[in-house]
């Protein structure tokens, strides 16, 4: 099948049908002086095999985490993806399915989303999860607007240990809403619950924290929840690395009211930064305020199980100007990937991956702390990321490591000017002891 009908005969047929004689006539509404009057400056056409070779040469100028030892995380994680994930998720029936618009015709897609939602609830310890959102940053913005709406309060407090890009999007998201965003400064790599307790007022809709936070530290969820709840504010917990929940207590267990975050780590490739997978989950009592699509399970007139889009009256295509969110879609394929990933691993598998991450990161942490001039920035417990203070600029270290096939961590100075000597390293289950030793060995010899 031809996708570009471009033979002379086809063009003439189309021109006839459009009622014009030449292609130029189609452009007569465009002023003469802005029209291009020469052919495009393109090289002559090449045969298919030559074109493919050319494209391959261009693609080879990129590199990726199959060729480098990646110690970079900071919101996007290089995990092993089992082959069941692409095998199932790329089946054409799933691959071509968009968010359910002809909902009831798409039972397979709806069932997959329903299972994604169910697993997301188990992972986060919450009652209800939606069909997914755009990404972790915008999901966090939605959580803020949801909290303001639920509490009828206008201020949200956000820890500076939340991903800086999430905070930037949060500010953009709320800039035209009656919501004020106030920073809650992190200290020693964590959000101090006492500072949160003092900052929360009767005007605070939500305290937004991330755990493990942007510095990799695990926050004191219980204390932060009680600080928020003491004045009637909600606790919003952003999860940037959901694999951590294979090991750590789910936010629902320590009192989170809304869990938001980024689901990329669940079987999705790094994808050069997107498309990613926004997650949001909440308590039963708040289900009518959860943004986006929601799949429910029901029975048909003959008692057979079936799936539907439920509570659609909240959504903007029904509620129009009164809707509390403008999201009427989801990241269907990314959510499917996450569902297949979680189903493939199972509960024990999720725990095993998380344990591998934690153990390898701990090994790297100990190993690097022993390199002269390098130290671990803070004492707080960490999962698979941690911050290192360096004797030379982290960007320079990265440049040198790249020459040896190692992708270094994130120089924190870009987001935190006072942490210019700090380097955020990530160690997933894909890193081997040999790679970690190699990293530490290079740090020892770098001058």
């Amino acid at each position: 099948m031809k996708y570009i009908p471009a033979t002379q005969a086809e063009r003439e047929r189309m021109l006839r049908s459009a009622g014009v004689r030449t292609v130029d006539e189609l452009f007569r509404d465009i002023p003469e002086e802005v029209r291009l009057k020469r052919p495009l400056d393109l090289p002559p056409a090449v045969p298919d095999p030559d074109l493919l070779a050319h494209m391959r040469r261009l693609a080879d100028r990129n590199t990726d985490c199959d060729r480098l030892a990646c110690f970079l995380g900071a919101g996007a994680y290089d995990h092993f993806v089992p082959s069941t994930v692409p095998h199932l998720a790329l089946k054409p029936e799933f691959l071509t399915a968009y968010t359910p618009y002809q909902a009831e015709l798409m039972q397979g897609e709806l069932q997959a989303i329903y299972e994604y939602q169910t697993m997301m609830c188990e992972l986060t310890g919450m009652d209800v999860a939606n069909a997914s959102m755009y990404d972790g940053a915008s999901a966090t913005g939605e959580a803020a607007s949801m909290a303001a709406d639920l509490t009828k309060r206008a201020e949200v407090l956000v820890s500076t240990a939340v991903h800086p890009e999430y905070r930037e999007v949060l500010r953009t998201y709320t800039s035209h809403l009656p919501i004020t965003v106030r920073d809650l400064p992190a200290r020693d790599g964590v959000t101090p619950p006492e500072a949160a307790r003092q900052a929360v007022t009767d005007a605070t809709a939500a305290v937004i924290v991330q755990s493990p936070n942007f510095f990799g530290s695990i926050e004191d969820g219980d204390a932060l929840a009680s600080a928020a709840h003491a004045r009637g504010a909600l606790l919003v917990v952003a999860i940037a690395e959901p694999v951590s929940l294979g090991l750590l207590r789910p936010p629902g267990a320590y009192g989170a009211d809304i869990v938001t975050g980024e689901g990329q780590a669940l079987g999705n490739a790094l994808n050069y930064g997107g498309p990613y997978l926004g997650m949001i989950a909440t308590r039963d009592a708040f289900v009518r305020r959860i943004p986006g699509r929601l799949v429910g399970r029901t029975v048909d007139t003959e008692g057979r199980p079936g799936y539907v889009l439920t509570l659609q009256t909240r959504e903007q295509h029904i509620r129009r100007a009164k809707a509390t969110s403008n999201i009427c879609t989801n990241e269907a394929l990314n959510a499917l990937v996450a569902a297949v990933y979680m189903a493939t691993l199972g509960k024990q598998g999720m725990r095993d991956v998380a344990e591998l991450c934690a153990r390898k990161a701990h090994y790297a942490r100990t190993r690097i702390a022993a390199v002269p001039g390098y130290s671990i920035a803070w004492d707080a417990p960490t999962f698979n990321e941690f911050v290192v203070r360096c004797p030379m600029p982290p960007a320079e270290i990265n440049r040198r490591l790249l020459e040896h096939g190692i992708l270094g961590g994130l120089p924190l100075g870009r987001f935190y000017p006072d942490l210019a000597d700090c380097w955020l390293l990530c160690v997933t289950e894909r890193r081997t002891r040999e790679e970690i030793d190699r990293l530490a060995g290079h740090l020892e010899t770098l001058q």
Partner: protein
Amino acid sequence: MYPKELRYSKEHEWAKTEGKRVRVGITKFAADRLSDVVYVELPAVGADIAFMQPFGVVESVKAVSDLYAPVSGKVVEINKALVEKPEVINMDPYGEAWMILVEPKDPGELGQLMDAAAYAAMVGEATS
């Protein structure tokens, strides 16, 4: 269909004076148009509400609509049973399905509402 002793807003709420207080609900016309009501969100007791401003939300299988206050004042009681059994809005809109009881700031505002005949005319029905 539209009891004579009630006053009616153009947004389909009814208001009933009970001594110094005003009881509020939605009309049979509104309930029929919404079809099966599945959820209602009411203000907290003690909340201040303003004349013809939203005070709550009613949701049916078809639509979500705001509820408008037919009088300004303080909410002194809400119908908690309605939150558990919103379907009574379809069955008994003027009785069991009352929504809030208000201590009005200016009972004169009720004069701006319609009587049963005017409301019936607005929705295109004859008074029963």
